[in-house]
Each structure stands twice: as structure tokens, then as C-alpha cells.
């Protein structure tokens, strides 16, 4: 029976992002959370491996207390239990510190794990760094960006497209793989599943102190990088603004730019009749 750890991250729901019209930015504080799509693929991969090989899934996340609801969702989908790493002291961690904390939790609470699966990247920051750094922290072999994974015995085989190559690779357990979104269509949460997960699901909550983290090495303090400024780079371009009825707008657009558009596509778009 394989012991599988799936690392998940809760991200702001993209389709529901509240836009601040004055600032021109996303209001992250009131954004609704969802399971990061690539993490969902990682969970789906774990569920399929369990169905084929037999196994048990532990879902791990680091985040604010509300991330618990995502762990409940993972349990409703088939994970055996969830581990929530939540502590104000962990806030502001860069990818290296995040991978350090995840590694401590996995070593402490998932003794004897066989396979760690992560999403390839997250939709909110897209660094794709935590997975590879977690493999380093756990000192196990790892592959990033797998499209398909099969486990047989103590070996996993995966395929990925990397730059211009299609690669097929193998490694022995224990190991870590980050999974791209798109290959497996994730399953739906069963009706009543989340409620059952809220009632019976086993969630272990751990703080920095529980993990024995050195406070100097976590959160903002422990991060090697420092954000100096965050700006909205909206370049103020002197542009032409068109408003009104769509048909009228399109007429104006062609009146001014028919040569430009026609030139780019190599066609004459002038309105006058030639014959």
C-alpha cells in the first residue's frame, strides 16, 4: 500500500476575482479561495494511483486557517486525512522557506511516505519552485512538470514535455513529482461529500512551534529575498478611445486603421468597390 502525500495550495478563485476599479488591482482580502488547479490534478493523479495500486493519501497545505475547507474538499474526494500548517509566523515565506516547512511536516507527520505529489505551479504566483525545492529538502529524487504518471511496484514512470523534448523517465520510491494541469480531468466533489468531510474528516493542525521550526528561519525573517516595491505598471499610452454603438465603433476603426490592419494580414480591406 502506497503512502502518498499531496501538497495543496489554496489560491484566489480566478473567475470570481473582485476587481478594484479605482486601484486597478485585485482585492485579495475578499477574494474567494479555491484549490489551485494543478494541485487538483496532483490529487486526481494520487487518487488514480491509489485505485490502481492501493494506497492512502494525506493532503498537506500551508496557509491561513480558511485553507482547512480545501483540505475538507480533498477528504471528500478521497484523501484519508489532511494536515494544515497554519501560523502567523509562517506568513510571508518565500518558496525556499515554504518548502522547508512542508518538508518538516512531511518528515514529522507522514513517516514512511512513498510518493509526494505537488501541482506544477500555482495560478496566483506561478513560480513552480516549491516542488523542486521540496524534493531537495526531502533529499529524494524528483521530476517537475509530469503529464502522466504510472506506478508499478517500487518504480514510477512519468512522461513530460520539457522545452522541445518529450521525455519518459523513471525513478524509484520514495520520490516527488509535480503534475501539470490538463492531463486528467479532475473528478467532481460528490454530493454530501464535503459535509461528511466536515463531520468526520481528520484534520491535523500544526503550528511553527509544533514543527520545531527555528523562528529565525521561517516567514519573512527566514526568506532570503525581500520585496522592495510593488507597483502597478500600467503604462499610460496615448491611445484613441472609441465609444458608442458597436457598429459605429467598427466603422470608425476601419476608417482610421484599415490600411494598418490590412497590411498586417496582407489583404486589402478598403470599403470602396473596385468594380
Amino acid at each position, binding site marked *: 500500500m502506497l503512502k502518498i502525500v499531496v501538497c495543496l495550495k489554496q489560491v484566489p478563485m*480566478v473567475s470570481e476575482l473582485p476587481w478594484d476599479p479605482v486601484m486597478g488591482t485585485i482585492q485579495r482580502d475578499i477574494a474567494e479561495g479555491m484549490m489551485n*488547479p494543478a494541485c487538483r490534478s496532483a490529487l486526481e493523479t494520487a487518487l488514480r494511483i491509489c485505485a490502481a495500486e492501493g494506497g492512502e493519501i494525506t493532503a498537506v497545505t500551508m496557509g491561513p486557517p480558511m485553507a482547512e475547507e480545501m483540505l475538507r474538499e480533498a477528504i471528500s474526494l478521497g484523501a484519508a486525512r489532511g494536515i494544515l500548517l497554519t501560523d502567523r509566523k509562517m506568513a510571508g515565506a518565500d518558496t*525556499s522557506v515554504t518548502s522547508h516547512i512542508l518538508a518538516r511536516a512531511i518528515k514529522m507527520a507522514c513517516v514512511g511516505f512513498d510518493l509526494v505529489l505537488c501541482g506544477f505551479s500555482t495560478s496566483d*504566483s506561478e513560480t513552480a519552485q516549491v516542488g523542486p525545492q521540496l524534493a531537495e529538502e526531502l533529499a529524494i529524487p524528483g521530476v*517537475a512538470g509530469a503529464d502522466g504518471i504510472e506506478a508499478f511496484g517500487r518504480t514510477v514512470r512519468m512522461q513530460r514535455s520539457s522545452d522541445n*523534448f518529450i521525455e519518459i*523517465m523513471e525513478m524509484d520510491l520514495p520520490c516527488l513529482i509535480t503534475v501539470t494541469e490538463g492531463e486528467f480531468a479532475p473528478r467532481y466533489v460528490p454530493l454530501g461529500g464535503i459535509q461528511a468531510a466536515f463531520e468526520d474528516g481528520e484534520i491535523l493542525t500544526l503550528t511553527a512551534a509544533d514543527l520545531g521550526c527555528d523562528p529565525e528561519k521561517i516567514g519573512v525573517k527566514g*526568506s532570503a529575498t525581500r520585496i522592495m516595491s510593488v507597483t502597478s505598471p500600467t503604462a499610460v499610452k496615448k491611445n484613441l478611445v472609441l465609444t458608442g454603438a*458597436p457598429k459605429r465603433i467598427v466603422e470608425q476603426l476601419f476608417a482610421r486603421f484599415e490600411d494598418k490592419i490590412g497590411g498586417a494580414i496582407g*489583404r486589402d480591406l478598403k470599403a470602396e468597390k473596385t468594380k
Partner: protein
Amino acid sequence: MSTSKKAIWVFGDYRNYFQNRVTLQLLSRARELAEKIDGMVCAVVFGHWTDEWLGEALSNNPTFCGVAKEYIAHGADRVYLTDHSRLAAYSMETYVFLMERLARQEKPEMILIGATAFGREFAPRLAKRLDTGLTADCIGLDINKDGLLIQIAPSFGGNLVAEIITPQRRPQMASVRPGIFQEIPHDHNRTGEVINVPLPRDIPADRVRLVRSERRLMREQKLEDASLVVCGGRGMGSKKKFAKLFELAELLGGEVGATRPAVYANWVGHEALVGQAGKQIRPQILFSFGVSGAIQHTAACNNAKFIVAVNKNPEAAMMKLADVAIVADASQVCAALIQELKRRLRLRQ
């Protein structure tokens, strides 16, 4: 072989040389950064038969061949080269091991790595081994008044750009998106030294076994190379309305791109994604429909020569980037454009 000059290293990612010239782009930017800190530019190359790697395609020009010489001709002062049969194929574990060993020995001030698929896994592993900071997928690099590397990167899902530094630890590391910097033209009169670094004897066995690796014959680059792109976002409203963009693109002889929300909503496949995790486009003309303009998207399309954006919200970031900003419902304007184009193209027949 070490000098007192601060060194900026560039990882020599030559595997897809002709499709992806990010290493040359980084050498160029590293040269400019080196001026500001009175430093030098070094490239690091691991491989086998690297002297002949570029030979085939460049055989019509006998003045240069080989990866190391190519990097010198494009701006490197020094190339560290480990050439060994063990390095015939790219290997993550081996390359990280070699780079860590060399960096600990030579102590570079900065390491820049192209954000190829390989580079984006290689960089975080290396940063972890060296216990230093790293910024992913930078869209700009500079030097601040203290001589530190400013790593400019998209931030937090919005249309934000963060300036990040690594104040204490060394080296300062960044992975950098391809297509941001302009390479220096090849100059075969440029000189530099090549330092041959022998393969360490204690190199560990690879735990990841490459069973098969196939180069894809022709990478589909339609969207990346298109001179006209029609891009749609959440503002298109529905899958059915989004599908109209394909009709428009066909009339215009262009390709269809999409933002992340449109891909998530399953209005279009992942291959159409224009953005940080998708494709970089640089068309002559970009039509952008119902796109708010998150930085992950705009950084991948703001090299378009001429942008027409349609959005109900005149304050949307994409509208600020546009040459023509149309304040209207995206799908209605799309429909009107189709109608007008059909009329005009029919007249031509």
C-alpha cells in the same frame, strides 16, 4: 583562475539554441549589469561534444563553432566548460551537482538562468543547495544604488510588478523569461577565456533515469509566430460567444489566444493560453476582447506592435496598454467586426 572582479554567471542552456536564445539574451543584459558593478560576465556550459553542437547548422560560417565560442562572441568574458560523455543528455541532478560545486568554488555574485522548462526546475534546486534567494521568471533586471541585483517579476495574480532583492545571501539568483532582452549581435572578434573544468570524480549516480527522450520534430508555433492574434478573456461572457473569436481570426488570417479565466472556464484549450504559464506572442496586431490585463497575461503580449482592446471597463489594465481602447461589450464588437469584415472581403472577390 579566480579574479577579484565580481562575476555574473549565465547558465548556458544551449539545448534548444535555435528556438530559444534566452542564454544569449541574458549574456547581453549581464554585460550591461556588469558595467554597473565593474564586474565580468561568465557563461557555464555542461555537455558533450559542445564544440560541435552548433557546427552543423553554422557550417556555412567557418569563423565560429562550438557553444563556448558562441557565448564569447555574444558577450561572455569567460566560459566554464565541463565536457564529458557523462553529460551527453541534460540531467537535472547532475547539472545541479556540477553547478553547486563550481559556484561554491568560484563564488559568483549573481547567477542568471533562462526560464526554459529545464531552467525553471534547475534554478530553484540550485538556490536551495546554495541556501540563497531566487526570483522566478523575471521580466526585468537592474542594479540598485548599493550594487544589488533588482529582480523584477510579476506578482500576486494582479497587474502588479514587484522589485525584489536578495540583500544578504550570495549568489543573487534570478530565472528570466525568454524574449525580454535583446541579444548582442554575434562578434567573432570578441575574445574571452575558456576554462575547462574536469568532471568531479565524486559525482553521484542519477536517481532519475531517462528512459527515452525525443525531440519534437516541428514545434507548433502558430500562435507565437502569428502576425495577427485575436485574444479573448472572461469578458467574452460565454463559450458560445468566445467561439466567435475563431470566426473573426479566420477572417483575419490570424490565431486565437486566451487568458487564464477563459481557459479555466473551458471555453478554449490550454494551448491557447497567452501568459506566464502559456505562450509569449508578439504580433503586428493584437485584438484583445474582454481582457482585464493581469500582468501574467500582459507581460506575454505587450510586445504586440499595435493593440486594439475592447472592454466595458475603461480602467482595465489592458485598455491602458492599447493603442485603440474600445469601451463596449466585447462580444458585440466581435460580432460587428465579423459582419463588417465579411462585407469588405466580399467586395474584394
